[in-house]
């Protein structure tokens, strides 16, 4: 603890300098009830730990491991981050998920020699197996401090990072509208082995247009940028970020002109309708309707609108993600009964999709798992993966990540797609407080906006937990508590 300049009222304010975390197996973390200063330090450290990883994901999403140019640097960064978290005492092993991960890794390894022996024309890539195991390894840990206050603090960091990304997207579009032609500055500045190749970094909003889908120059693909912004939008709403930040993120989401972020936000808000928080959603309705009407008048809105009805088109993005993979892979899976039981081999679905000649065809999680590893190992892997969605502090985030990663995104071995799940759900599970959506008072965004609009006054709505006044409350509490210290 370090004494800092005295407060105006003469009370000595003591600010925690550095969190002194107890080693995981040498003792527990500070108990907030007994040690409020330690609890606050733990809360800050945990939120920053997770938020910083989200920021790293946004910044480093295009970078590869130099030794393996096809593998994202995030595949190495996340396990390293987890080890650091364990050493700092911010994380601990989660027994159930560890068991499931071990079962999945072991079963999928054992099944490979069986595939080689019994399956007709197996396609086996040991690297693909190792990638699956490595990407899901971070599920075996959980955060020690999983309180609601810590989670909301982390959401605020995610929302701020998303706001910066959204600002980058708007600058991207603004430069295009100003007549500056698109250039991939990152690719020009860095040697190609440092960057992931074979990704569609960006492309015109409509054929022949000079307007490209915004990726803020750092995004791997507009769809991933949109996904991060969609997540940031939900986080901003839940954590009570100011309305202008919400609007900024929505602007970035529109500039990215991809459906994945909109899908995340839409599913999350639909889930919220089933909880008391829906009362706050209603307050946003006029703003939302006005925004949608204004949006459809723009080329971005037209493009997004087109995405909503494109599923019937076989070459549409929706079809290539959600319909065609199943119809294309099914006959190739059931042609050999042993392939149904044992799978065609790690990486086989990706190989077959690449050889299909169908541009943009993806392998969704269910296809990948069962096609490559068969029914037996596939069920174990599916259990491991699905359990990562269980027990998070926000039902809306859990469900929207499930829909996104199992239906829309390549959510099995793409670390950039899987990471948000870890950051917002898995590492916060099992939750220790009721789900966030069960308490409408947590959604201070509406209250803050209404307060500024002079519609609502503090104290008018009584909640058990008030984020909007949390900062002030904590500060005064901390002053009171610290004032007694020498």
């Amino acid at each position: 603890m370090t004494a800092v300049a005295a407060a105006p009222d003469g009370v000595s304010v003591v600010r925690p300098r550095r969190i002194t975390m107890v080693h995981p197996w040498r003792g527990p973390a500070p108990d907030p009830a007994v040690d409020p200063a330690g609890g606050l330090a733990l809360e800050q450290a945990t939120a920053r730990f997770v938020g910083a990883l989200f920021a790293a994901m946004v910044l480093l999403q295009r970078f590869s491991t130099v030794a393996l140019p096809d593998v994202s640097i995030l595949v190495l960064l996340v396990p390293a981050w987890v080890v650091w978290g364990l050493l700092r005492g911010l994380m601990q092993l989660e027994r159930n998920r560890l068991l499931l991960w071990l079962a999945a890794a072991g079963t999928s390894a054992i099944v490979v020699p069986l595939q080689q022996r019994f399956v007709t024309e197996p396609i086996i890539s040991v690297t693909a197996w190792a990638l699956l195991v490595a990407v899901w390894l971070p599920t075996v840990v959980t955060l020690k401090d999983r309180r609601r206050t810590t989670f909301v603090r982390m959401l605020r960091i995610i929302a701020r990072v998303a706001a910066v990304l959204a600002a980058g997207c708007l600058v991207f579009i603004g430069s295009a509208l100003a007549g500056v032609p698109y250039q991939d500055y990152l690719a020009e500045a860095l040697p190609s082995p440092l960057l992931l190749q074979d990704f569609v970094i960006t492309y015109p909003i409509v054929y022949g247009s000079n307007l490209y889908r915004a990726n803020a120059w750092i995004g791997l693909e507009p769809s991933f940028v949109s996904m991060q912004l969609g997540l940031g939008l939900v986080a901003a709403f839940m954590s009570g970020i100011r309305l202008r930040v919400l609007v900024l993120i929505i602007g970035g989401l529109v500039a990215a002109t991809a459906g994945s972020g909109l899908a995340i936000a839409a599913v999350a808000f639909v889930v919220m309708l089933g909880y008391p928080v829906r009362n706050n959603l209603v307050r946003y309705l006029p703003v939302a309707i006005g925004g949608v009407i204004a949006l459809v008048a723009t080329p971005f809105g037209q493009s997004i609108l087109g995405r909503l009805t494109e599923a019937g088109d076989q070459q549409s993005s929706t079809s290539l993600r959600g319909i065609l993979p199943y119809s294309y892979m099914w006959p190739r899976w059931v042609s050999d009964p042993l392939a149904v039981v044992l799978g065609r081999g790690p990486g086989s679905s990706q190989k077959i999709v690449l050889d299909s000649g169908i541009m943009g065809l993806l392998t969704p999680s269910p296809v990948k798992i069962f096609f490559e590893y068969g029914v037996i190992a596939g069920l174990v892997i599916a259990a491991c993966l699905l359990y990562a969605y269980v027990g998070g502090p926000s039902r809306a985030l859990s469900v929207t990540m499930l829909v996104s990663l199992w239906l829309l995104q390549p959510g099995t071995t793409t670390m950039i797609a899987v990471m948000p799940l870890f950051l917002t759900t898995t590492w916060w599970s099992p939750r220790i407080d009721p789900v966030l959506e069960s308490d409408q008072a947590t959604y201070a965004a509406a209250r803050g906006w209404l307060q500024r609009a002079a519609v609502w006054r503090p104290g008018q709505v009584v909640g058990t937990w008030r984020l909007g006044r949390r900062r002030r409350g904590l500060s005064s509490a901390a002053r009171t508590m610290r004032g007694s210290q020498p």
Partner: protein
Amino acid sequence: MSAMTPPDEDRALRVQTVPKPDGSGPGGSTGSHPVPAEPLPAESRRLPKAAARPAPVLALLRARWPWLVIAGLMGTLAGLLLGTTQIYQATATIRLSGVTDPLQVKQAGQTYEEIAQSPPVIEKATTYNSIKGTAPEDLATRVTAVWALDTYLVDITVKNSSGERAVLEANAVMTAVIDSANAQADRKNKELKDAVIKVLADKVQGSGDATAVEQGRRDRLGFGLGDAQLGQIVQAGAVTAGSQAASYIAAGTSRPVAAGLGGIGGLILGAVAALLVGAGRRRIRTPNELRALAPELTLRSTTQAGEVAGRLLESGHSTLVVLSLPSTPSSASRFAAAVANHLRTHGSSVTLVNAIALESGDSSSMALPDEVWVLRRDIRQDVKSYFSTDMLVVACTAEPEAVGLISGQSDLMAVIVAKEGRSSLQQVWDTVSAVESADPIVVLAP
């Protein structure tokens, strides 16, 4: 013990077996004190099973390392048995030309995918000297052709257990595809030429200027033939060798790789089994192992009787209960006596009640003697009156009757004596849970 026991042992340290209570009912006496002879509560012969307390993962895996090794070896063996010979693959590439429309490129590419794998082409490839003797049916199962998306290239890949052979076969199939395409073009040219010659040979029938008409017909036919030949030439040039196969790579897994994967899988599944089974049934081998598997226990050794005696004196309690797990009666008796001696050394007078049936052999002889009545709360709270001593040390087996008398109470000190290599962790946990209120100490006897 003898070194620590003062000469006036009989006065201060009363090592005794308390007589059975009077069977005449409440009011029976032991010496001058009335000892009620209420029957002990009839309970199950087993202690209630303690709630599962998962051991730390790493400690558990370390304790169960033989499981991991055995499972890993079994997996390796399975991988070795199931693994097949290493397969290699070589790829030759043909190049399409003469078509520019993307849709036509795709059609042409996919057409040549089929042609490259068709029986006539495969059969033709097997006639070349480089791979002569290869059965067409065998080669057909090892050839795949794939048009690379958005290119003019079609990859022809052949797998073989010999890498060099795979290179030769891939080149042979590529040559066969090109030869086949050329032969097809030649045949069409010839058919066209024959048709033209046939037309040329036909004389014009009818009147008029036969020479001029004939000349005109010949000119038209000549132009037609020229156009057709040009078209065929263009078509014949539509397939060329893109690149010949020169090297080969491993395809799929080899036997060592399969063995490695099997070993890793076995090791991991062994870990799963170890974690699922837990450490409950495991017999404790060393104090360090017990410390690792159950870090929340207070663990002492049999040489630390003095420390236990000191704790008892500091606690202010007057009763120490030494609970013996199965297979540890003599160790528990000795430990209780050692603690009693230490208490005596500190100036306390002690009554030591050894309620452990030392006879071993059949299980019925291990039934608790009736002396455990001394554990009754009223007696423990009035040791001075009942025994005329300051302290009461009771050694008894951790059976439900004895544990039931002290369970849920904290006005005594409890020591649980386990034995290395004999007592299981679950037995320790069950007993610790039963007397948890007394903040028990676990003593591990060698």
